[in-house]
């Protein structure tokens, strides 16, 4: 079975020489939901930018990223960007069109959709993100949580096979978090969620990858790894409250 997403020995150095990623390798199967955790500066966000070719600025040498078996090279950049939907941490950076409709339509339009099919795709994406009917709204009138959902709709409208999310619940109030979790549970695509919200990981991701200083330090079942207090503390994390008493919470594939 070809993994939906595979990294082989991914390395990255910033222009000033700092090493950001070193030998990162893992494979995620179709339909899996995997959490990506680690302290600040571990390289999670940098890693995510590699998954759809935004980094490195010039793709040369042997490819390290494979999406559905296809290597990420300059030639298949467009195709990979169709398959990998990246949701950035800051909604204001991603919501750049004057109205919600235009923003959600942006992706599908780039890939050639138009007319009624486009309108249908947009309203479907908005519905799936839990904000039906927001087409005519203007971004600066939306709350932070609503902006997040519009960004999610914008990514869903591209119908990606792999959904990569960077801190999806940060800055959300408890209700916002609950609603977002409910939405994510419904999405059948493969998911990779980078987050500090360990409870989110416990609830949604049966598998977790731990990163620190640009390297993968652990990769395995969520409950096992997150219950390992020594491992958590060694990498700037902690055991989530829900596991304090060793009660495994419901996972996505309960």
């Amino acid at each position, binding site marked *: 079975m070809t993994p939906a997403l595979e990294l082989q020995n991914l390395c990255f150095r910033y222009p000033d020489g700092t090493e950001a990623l070193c030998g990162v390798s893992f494979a995620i199967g179709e339909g899996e939901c995997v959490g990506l955790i680690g302290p600040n500066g571990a390289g999670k966000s940098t890693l995510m930018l590699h998954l759809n070719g935004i980094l490195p600025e010039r793709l040369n040498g042997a490819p390290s990223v494979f999406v559905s078996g296809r290597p990420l090279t300059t030639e298949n950049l467009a195709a990979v960007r169709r398959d990998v939907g990246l949701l*950035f941490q800051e909604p204001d*950076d991603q919501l750049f*069109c004057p109205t919600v409709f235009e923003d959600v339509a942006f992706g599908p339009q780039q890939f050639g959709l138009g007319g009624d099919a486009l309108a249908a795709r947009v309203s479907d994406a908005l519905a799936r993100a839990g904000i039906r009917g927001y087409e005519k709204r203007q971004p600066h009138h939306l709350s932070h949580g609503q902006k997040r959902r519009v960004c999610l709709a914008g990514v869903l409208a591209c119908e990606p096979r792999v959904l990569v999310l960077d801190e999806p619940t940060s800055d959300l109030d408890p209700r916002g978090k609950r609603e977002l979790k409910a939405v994510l549970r419904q999405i059948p695509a493969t998911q990779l969620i980078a987050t500090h919200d360990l409870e989110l990981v416990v609830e949604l991701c049966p598998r977790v990858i731990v990163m620190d200083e640009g390297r993968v330090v652990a990769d395995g079942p969520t409950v096992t790894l997150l219950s390992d207090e020594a491992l958590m503390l060694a990498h700037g994390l902690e055991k989530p409250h829900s596991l304090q008493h060793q009660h495994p919470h419901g996972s996505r594939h309960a």
Partner: protein
Amino acid sequence: MRLDLLDRHSRLDSPVHRQPAAAKLFVAVASVLTTVLLPVSKPAGFAIVAAVLLIVAALSRIPPVFLAKRLLLLEPIALGVAGLAVFQPDGWRVFAVVMVRTNLCLLTMILLSNTTPFAGLLSVLQRLRVPSLLVTTLALMYRYLFVLMDEVGRMSRARASRAFSVRRGTAWWSQAGIVGQLFIRSTERAERIYAAMCARGWQ
């Protein structure tokens, strides 16, 4: 405070609001053109334009107080320039004509901006084949105006929280610092927006 007056009412529902943006833009420009070209010898023309504008204002359901406030905000500029007009032969007549014309035109544009979402105006520009670089610049500018204003607000409040004296010299230096920071953050934000556009397949 100024920002609050920015197209606040463009989302209302009224017979005027429902008209297509292109029509409203055309009518507004035509109205301004008419007002500017109306011969001074026929003051009735001005009265007709004023009447039409007031009818549109009434139909648009925009609170008249709001319209009055917007108009008043712009008076000082008009008065300032028109004031210079007084110092010439027949100066007061020139002044009066200029003020009437200016206020009619101001009212027209205030009505336009408050009955038409900016996105509507942008799509008209697109249809008029205005270069896409300019339209994109205008669209992004409008979108991030409020975001940047918020950033300025946050930086100013943070600065004020640590300011114990308000000496004018330091005020200029720290305001300039805020401007500089804002530019740097804007360039960084622009990079992130570029990444977000690419992520969704921007060609």
